[in-house]
């Protein structure tokens, strides 16, 4: 566990509403970085050094300097307001980890899908899974490479997003940008009629 008791971040007594959200997306899109940036507590990472064999399975094309990958979970916590505290569960991006993904998704109220602007299509699979589960989601384009970002209209068209689904661009290393992305998701979850269907299920 590591951290000193004196360094603990305690939640105020008024905090009672826990909101579990998933941070999902394809391999190397920046999920760990996102959770790292936004968490108010020391984040939990389960990273392993990638093997050469793994590098063949996980397409590293165009992704430089990546030597580790999340094999189980990223976890972080962020108090968004006096009453809402966010528990973020980042899940492995690779297809072969989907069986664990199902378990971690349990009880999640929403998901933030990260997408790399150069590899948008790699986020389509996870969006299909979310839609099958009826889990509200938002899309955040990680623009960490600072390439030319298509317009929101073009991005919405690429993802075939319904108008009410939030779409934001953010740098996963930027604290306020990641917070804005999460807030857009939480607002969407709060407004989502699906949530009521789940409650009565």
């Amino acid at each position: 566990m590591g951290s000193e008791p004196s360094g603990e971040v305690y939640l105020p007594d008024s905090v009672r509403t826990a909101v579990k959200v998933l941070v999902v997306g394809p391999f190397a899109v920046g999920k760990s970085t996102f959770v790292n940036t936004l968490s108010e507590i020391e984040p939990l990472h389960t990273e392993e050094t990638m093997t050469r064999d793994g590098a063949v399975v996980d397409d590293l094309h165009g992704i430089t300097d990546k030597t580790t990958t999340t094999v189980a979970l990223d976890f972080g916590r962020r108090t968004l307001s006096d009453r809402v505290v966010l528990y973020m569960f980042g899940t492995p991006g690779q297809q072969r980890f989907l069986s664990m993904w199902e378990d971690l998704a349990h009880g999640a109220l929403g998901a933030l899908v990260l997408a790399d602007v150069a590899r948008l299509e790699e986020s389509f699979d996870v969006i299909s899974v979310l839609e099958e589960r009826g889990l509200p989601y938002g899309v955040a384009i990680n623009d960490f490479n600072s390439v030319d970002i298509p317009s929101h209209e073009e991005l919405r068209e690429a993802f075939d997003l319904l108008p009410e689904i939030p779409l934001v661009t953010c740098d996963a290393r930027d604290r306020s940008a990641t917070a804005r992305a999460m807030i857009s998701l939480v607002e969407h979850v709060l407004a989502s009629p699906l949530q009521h269907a789940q409650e009565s299920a």
Partner: protein
Amino acid sequence: MSTNTVRRPELRWMLDDVLLPEVRSAVVLARDGLVITATGDIGEADADRFAACLASLRGSSAAATEFCGAQPTWNQTLIEFDTGYIFLIAAGPHAYMGVSTTKKVDMGPATQRFHAVVQKLGSELGTLPRSGDSDRS
């Protein structure tokens, strides 16, 4: 809006029986990976992180069922370190208990005690309203 698992510090007394010699700390978590209660020696942030880690462990354990005979039911996961053990045990249908011990723990009696505690926890948690934990699997 539904919400996730609410902490229930009033259940902490149920973990008193877990605190045998050589036991470091224990946390009870719901299937969604959030803390229900924890022993007093683990800080709140660390309890959150331990619970998330245990939920992930339980997820990978459940994913391994297909490699262990016909339709196995997961009961517990044990990790051994050179510095001790971590037990993860089912506590009723929607909750788990994780216990961290040193290497010197007496495995036999400890395991017996832990299983007695999860049994009590399981029946206690089964009677509580579970906000936001509708079973969607």
